[in-house]
């Protein structure tokens, strides 16, 4: 089944309370996905010449300070780091590929959950409310956030198989549904240089969009192409550094509801995830059309 939720702020009014507004949305979708949950939050952007990574290590007592020091010495640049439970956000004064290379040499067991200038992905196996509290979701600030509660169908219940998936800089995707042509598409994308961490079908959709964006497509054009090339059932919510998109397949059997006010756009699998939002009583509420995508971008 799975539940997906997203909240995109159109101005800075609620930026300091983004996590607080989003937490009940995520938790309300527990019925649709009680086995794992995760979210991608955008904010606290690093400047030009910096990259921001979210890292995870299976060892809860992993020595992040040591890794950060070694990484700094190896790259010869400044690093800022902040730990959140068993996940760490590193801000490194270098480019993404150098950072990835240095990290792989230092410790191949460290998993990169996200990379970019703004995105942070936090996800785990367990009940959404436990994951929200583990990462202190309610205290988080940012411009937009996308989350997922998982009821696994296509691959195992693992942290790696939980959403959001990120295969490119600042891009993430959450998915409700199942893709039928993901194996062949994964092979094609691998030949195009996209790397995958799992056998999960949703990761292929994220990889596909990364590939199209790398080819120079705008988000809108990439989504148009996705409608042609992805086969199966899907409702997607997609985040980029400045953008937020929702798309449903032509059959549209996976639910979705959108709400918009002057201050935000919110998306959820079911309306009940939106009821705690401010001004929802007077929001424009509608069901997104099949084979149609909706995109919002901050200028």
């Amino acid at each position, binding site marked *: 089944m799975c539940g997906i939720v997203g909240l995109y702020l159109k101005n800075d009014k609620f930026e300091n309370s983004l996590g607080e507004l989003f937490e009940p949305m995520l938790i309300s979708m527990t019925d649709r996905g009680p086995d794992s949950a995760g979210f991608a939050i955008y904010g606290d952007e690093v400047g030009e010449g910096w990259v921001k990574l979210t890292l995870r290590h299976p060892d809860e007592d992993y020595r992040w300070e040591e890794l950060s020091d070694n990484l700094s010495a190896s790259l010869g640049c400044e690093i800022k780091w902040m730990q959140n439970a068993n996940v760490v956000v590193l801000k490194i004064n270098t480019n993404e590929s150098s950072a990835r290379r240095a990290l792989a040499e230092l410790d191949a067991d460290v998993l990169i959950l996200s990379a970019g200038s703004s995105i942070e992905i936090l996800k785990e196996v367990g009940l959404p409310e436990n994951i929200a509290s583990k990462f202190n979701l309610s205290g988080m600030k940012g411009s937009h956030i996308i989350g997922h509660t998982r009821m696994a169908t296509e691959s195992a219940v693992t942290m790696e198989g939980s959403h959001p998936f990120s295969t490119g800089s600042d891009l993430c995707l959450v998915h409700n549904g199942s893709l039928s042509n993901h194996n062949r598409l994964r092979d094609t994308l691998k030949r195009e240089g996209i790397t995958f961490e799992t056998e999960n079908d949703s990761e292929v959709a994220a990889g596909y969009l990364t590939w199209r964006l790398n080819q120079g497509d705008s988000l809108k054009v990439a989504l148009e192409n996705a409608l042609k090339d992805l086969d199966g059932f899907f409702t997607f919510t997609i985040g980029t550094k400045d953008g937020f998109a929702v798309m449903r397949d032509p059959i*549209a*059997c996976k*639910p979705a*509801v959108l709400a918009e006010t002057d201050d935000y756009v919110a998306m959820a699998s*079911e*309306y*009940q*995830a*939106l*009821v705690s939002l401010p001004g929802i*009583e007077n929001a424009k*509420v*509608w*069901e997104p*059309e*099949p084979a149609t995508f909706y995109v919002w971008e901050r200028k």
Partner: protein
Amino acid sequence: MMTVDLAAQSVRDLNKALHECKENITEKEWVVTNPKGNHNIAVGLDAEISVDIHGHAGYFCAGMNKTANVTVHGNVGQGVAENMMSGVVRVKGDASQAAGATAQGGLLVIEGNAGARCGISMKGVDIVVKGSIGHMSCFMGQSGSLVVCGDAGEALGDSLYEVHIYVKGSVKSLGADCIEKDMRSEHIAELKGLLEKAGVDENPLDFKRYGSARQLYTFKVDNASAY
């Protein structure tokens, strides 16, 4: 008038109280506040009562309704009035997919738009939609009427049996074995009655009628020996 606040009471409490009206109607008018997208609100009613739901409801609202008059002052999720037997269900806003699915009688009025598969496998209900309907609507519809004042999506009336479909706007495409048919005087009279019953101010002469061409397997006498 009895008010049930779903911020304070559960849907189960509400439905239990409404079900008790079958034996003994203590209150004819019920008001439900704070539905907040909850599923299964006012399901399985079997009493001549009216229920007004103020706000948006979730899935299967007023499902299996019998004789009751349910009005939702907001939107509804999937499967509103599914398998309704009789009575009236009115949605002031939009309905998600499968509105009135398999419903056997009564009247379903949707004042906004309905999503995909509106009236799928309907078996006698009358559905009047003031707005438009989504794709695959009235799939395998068996009897009853579907009136659409807006447009219809792809594959309207696919594998249709005997539902009378009336559409005022455009039809994106017709499903297998669904064709446009003449509006004869009895159809104009039927549509006029449906529009009046639904309280919708439209001219029946502006509508086109669609129905089954009766060319599929089950309609062929040659296949009768298979049963």
